[in-house]
């Protein structure tokens, strides 16, 4: 099967131009690099959950009372597949010494996206697929609007650099950063939902009606991120302002506005890209605080509920998915980097 896969890849690469083929082989290599990292993450979570909280403890927690017989624990472990040894089965034959273990089984299930069921017996994969959409409905607008507002405000501050507007703008950003996110959430809910009664306090409805539930969390999400965002983009754009192409554009008599939007914005987008693309896949996971405060049934509130109920299966799945999305984000960052900046090559130049 591997040979078939390999020939497929070779054929695929042979039909591409040289730059595209580099890209494809690079992506394939990166995907293979991701596997040891994912295994490492699994070892870590496995150690965290199963050595501190052994299957015996889990059985006791599940069976509920203090006076549980050993037979009952054994029975529960057998029923839920926890009766195998953790990492190495000395009684099994050949390769089964490794495959017939708790760790291998759990990891294999995760890698094949077979997430199993939570402590309440619900299918985790099904829940994840369904809870993903409310998360996206909240996270994507927050991200897009936040990005647009942060960049435009940063450009505005750069436009008025070394004036009082710059100084006061930075001071305001500093104040915004120093306020806890919880303050924005609690204050916003109080002001807009309770006093002014503009939007419902919390809840969710699928379809278009979701807007009225989402508008407040989106606004709060944008406001709570604006301080850090503006400061960060401002430093990026200020670094561009110092460069020589800006000087030459200015010498050609271009107006400051044209320089700012046509030259600095375009070139400043390259460092912006690295910080932004990596975030995109993790938008699926949603925001823990926003979702649980506003009662949005997304993956973030799913995780919080799992943490509060000490449902390790769900937390393990979410850790796995989070890592996976992060790695996908890193790969996407590298690819987008080559697309916008021709100077960047993915292959290491030989010495």
């Amino acid at each position, binding site marked *: 099967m591997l040979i078939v896969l390999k020939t497929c890849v070779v054929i695929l690469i042979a039909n591409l131009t040289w730059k595209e083929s580099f890209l494809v082989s690079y992506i394939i290599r990166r995907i293979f690099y991701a596997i*040891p*990292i994912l295994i*490492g*993450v699994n070892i*870590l*979570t496995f150690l*965290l*959950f199963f050595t*501190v*909280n052994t299957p015996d*403890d889990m059985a006791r927690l599940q069976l509920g009372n203090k006076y549980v017989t050993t037979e009952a624990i054994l029975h529960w472990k057998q029923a839920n597949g926890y009766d195998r040894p953790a990492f190495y089965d000395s009684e099994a034959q050949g390769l089964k010494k490794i495959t017939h273990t708790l760790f291998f089984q759990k990891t294999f299930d995760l890698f094949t996206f077979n997430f199993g069921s939570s402590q309440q017996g619900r299918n985790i994969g099904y829940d994840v697929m369904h809870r993903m959409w409310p998360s996206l409905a909240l996270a994507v607008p927050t991200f897009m609007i936040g990005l647009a507002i942060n960049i435009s405000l940063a450009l505005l501050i750069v436009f008025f*650099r070394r004036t009082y507007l710059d100084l006061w703008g*930075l001071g305001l950003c*500093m*104040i915004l*950063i*120093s*306020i*806890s*996110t*919880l*303050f924005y959430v*609690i204050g916003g*809910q*109080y002001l807009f939902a*309770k006093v002014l009664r503009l939007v419902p306090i919390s809840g969710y409805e699928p379809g278009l009606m979701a807007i009225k539930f989402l508008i407040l969390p989106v606004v709060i999400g944008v406001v709570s991120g604006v301080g850090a965002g503006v*400061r960060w983009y*401002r*430093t990026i754009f*200020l670094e561009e302002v*110092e460069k020589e192409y800006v000087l030459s554009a200015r010498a050609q008599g271009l107006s400051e506005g044209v320089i700012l939007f046509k030259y600095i914005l375009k070139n400043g987008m390259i460092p912006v890209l690295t910080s932004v693309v990596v975030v995109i896949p*993790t938008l699926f*996971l949603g925001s*823990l*605080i926003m979702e*649980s405060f506003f009662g949005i049934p997304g993956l973030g509130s799913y*995780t*919080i509920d799992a*943490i*509060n109920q*000490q449902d*390790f299966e769900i*937390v*393990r799945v*979410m*850790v796995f998915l*989070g*890592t996976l999305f*992060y*790695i996908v984000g890193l790969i996407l960052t590298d690819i987008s980097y080559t697309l916008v900046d021709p100077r960047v090559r993915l292959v290491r130049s030989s010495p």
Partner: protein
Amino acid sequence: MPFQYVFLWTDMLFYVLIILMVVGCTGGRKNMMLVSAWQYIFRRPLAMFSLVILLFFMVIAFLDSIHFYPLLYVHDSGSVYATRVQSLLDFLVAPLGRYTTETYSAPFKLFIQPITNYDLCIGIVLSLLKGLLGFLVVFFLMALMLFFKGGRHVSGLFNDASWRAIFFAIFYICLRVSLSLYVSHYFYIFGTDKVGGDVFYQAIKSIRTGMVIGTLTTLLMLPFAIFFGTIAGYFGGWTDDIVQYIYTTISSIPGILLIAAAILSLQIFIKNHADSFENLAQRSDARLFMLCVVLGLTAWTDLCRLIRAETLKLREMDFVQAAVVMGVSRYKIIIRHIVPNLMHIIWITIVLNFSMLVLAETVLSYVGVGVDPSTMSWGNMINSARFELAREPVVWWPLLAAFSFMFVLVFCANLFADTLRDAFDPRGSSSRT
């Protein structure tokens, strides 16, 4: 013995931290590069103002880190100590925190002791005068210290504006402390919470929790980050590969999930080994300590990556090459020549992490994986008060107290961090362009 000392892990580490700070300050005086960077900070009035406030918070946290059981009475068969752990701070601010009522009360609504307006005014004026006296004493002591201990050398680091900022901050703190202590005899300054506890007292006690999380986390992770970062950068080869693999793996996990996972497991561990803790204070302290460890576990990867990159650069420098040629051992080179040149990265990380961690504590406590519910912290205050805005009439004071204390601390830390970054890392500066 008038008291029985209580041993807590975070207390110990906090003492270590303060000793390290003192050693660092006295030892760093000889390093010219560090001195010139600090000189830049010392001449910024705003930075000095926030530094004084931060140090004040630090002093409160330190006083709150000396725990003991006070002696109740001496019996024939031995001394009997109180069952509730107290700190030196409780002792100093008494009677603040000793009074409770039944339920909610708004700020300044309830009298603890009856007092006429006339007496109150006189008392306030007297307390302000006391604060002024305290300020003069501090001023005099500082002047004396500068006069005898190489004052010219130290005062040359500052300028007039920053001296003014420092003394203004001290002046403000003295008056404020004196006034608050006086008024707290008669009123609940920030009202009381659901069970009648003094909110102002809780907010003050939370300072220690915030400071411990903000500073100890970085302190705990520093040795690992420095060790792994330098050996990866200096040795290269398979050492580098392994270290890189470890930190890539850890940093791939979304931070809050890793923290939640680790704290959940530890919670169960503590529950299963409940008998190994003598009292409630030690158990909640163990949880605070573990929270620092876990936060450090997620935070060390960034620093490690920075240190590795810097070490790669330093390794090629002439002075390191010279040391290699002279046959200095590799570990000695790392300790003597590489680590001292990493100090700027370390300083920036410490200060930048601080405000991030203080804010993170509230979120984690809200999620349910923060400090122990019996520990007083701003996160717990906000968490327990979050439904109170929905009450009629609105109960806003616990939230106000927690948010305003946190804001002052984080704002000062951010202001200071900005100047510190400008001083140590001119390239990434935000205001010196």
